């Protein structure tokens, strides 16, 4: 388990703690968002007000993308948690707490809007042609349900939680580490883009998260420029 390497100033200058990451942690923080981004490139598009028509010929890729996404949502939460694990302060704590409702509610929303819709479309495809209009209405009504729809109750809780997690994480990284300014900016932008997960927004946000993670890891590994009066604390 990695621990932050701390520096203390003999003349009360506060020096941010530094994180060390294992190669496995770095690989995890890069691989999870990248793989998810690649998967999301296959996300079928279409009109939100004609859901059955949008999905009926793409049921297999629709289901494959959303089943994978269901796995990647908690994995991304774990990647953010690894990034912020030893960062101190209220903002970091808020971010870690917000990851829990994100993982739960965004996954649930994904199961409703993605998987359940896909299965419904598949089932409607099996109905006799004369009954398919009724089935299409069913799919549309389900997709517009206050729980399931985009900006519905469940999706909104999940999305807002992720935004809170990423913005609070960005603030924590800015305040309590010596990461470059690009890291919190990229984390904040990534938060907004990832919650709108179909391409191009989702994959772009995930790539920005990877860039932020790499910059953060590199900044923590760089040697500090010696400052008069500042010495590494005894381990």
């Amino acid at each position, binding site marked *: 388990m990695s621990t932050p390497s701390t520096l203390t100033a003999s003349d009360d200058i506060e020096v941010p703690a530094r994180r060390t990451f294992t190669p496995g942690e770095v690989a995890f923080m890069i691989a999870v968002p990248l793989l998810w981004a690649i998967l999301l490139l296959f996300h079928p598009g279409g009109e939100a007000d004609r859901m059955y028509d949008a999905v009926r010929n793409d049921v297999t890729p629709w*289901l494959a993308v959303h*089943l994978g996404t*269901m796995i990647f*949502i*908690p994995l991304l939460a774990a990647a953010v948690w690894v990034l912020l694990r030893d960062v101190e302060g209220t903002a970091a704590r808020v971010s870690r707490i917000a990851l*829990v*409702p994100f*993982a*739960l509610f965004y*996954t*649930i929303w*994904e*199961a*409703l809007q993605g*998987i*359940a819709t896909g*299965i*419904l479309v598949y*089932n*409607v495809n*099996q*109905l006799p042609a004369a*009954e398919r209009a*009724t*089935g299409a*209405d*069913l799919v549309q*009504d*389900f997709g517009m*349900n206050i*729980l*399931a729809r985009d900006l519905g109750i469940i999706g909104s809780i999940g999305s807002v939680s992720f935004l809170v997690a990423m913005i609070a994480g960005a603030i924590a990284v800015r305040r309590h580490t010596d990461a470059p300014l690009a890291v919190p900016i990229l984390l904040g932008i990534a938060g907004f883009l990832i919650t709108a997960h179909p391409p191009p927004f989702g994959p772009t946000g995930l790539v920005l998260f990877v860039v932020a993670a790499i910059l953060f890891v590199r900044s923590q590994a760089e040697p500090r420029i010696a400052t008069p009066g500042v010495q590494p604390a005894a381990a």
Partner: protein
Amino acid sequence: MIASAAPTAEQRVFSVAELAFLIGMPIAWGVLLWFHPATDPDDIYGGLRDEVVTYQIVHVGTLVFIGLIGVALYRLVRDLPGRAARISRIAIPVFVVFYGAWETVIGLATGALVQHANDVPAEDRAAVSETIQSLQENLIVGEMSVTAVVGALAWLTATIAAAVAYRGVGAPVMATILLGLSLIVISHPPPIGPVGLLCFAGAVVVIARWRQNASPEYQREE
């Protein structure tokens, strides 16, 4: 019966708020589950059409409680040493994600579809009912599906591993038994679900008392 050992310094006494959460939450969920309407697996729409609001309320609540029971079990095992505790901690998020996703489709999606079926003209109801029935039989998220099995196995693993972990640190046998019995929560409709949740709350009481009755050395360290 094997005598129980005193908790170690790492196994702290629960705070009052923590204890209220660990006992009150499963009891509250158990009460909610008593209102879970009985369903006929061969005629989901017929069984639910007159109780769809109750069905939806129970399943929206259950969704929240799935996350909370995951948090509760994590708080029980987070400071326990050993492989069993580690396995339990790993299985908890798998349970929350997969059981939550399954519950979403079987509970919320089915409820929304039954509501839709109630609103369509009578001549269209058969087609909608057929679609609702197909959803229950789906291999990915249906009643006996991959998602359901993974979620259920994760809960079984989490609770049994937690029971083993507590036995490993010398907790009373009753704590191990009750925690192990709480695996039946996986079949959540009454009476099984509420009984399993009562076992969970009972296990918390036994564990809390065991932690409270720590050695004098431990009390001084606190």
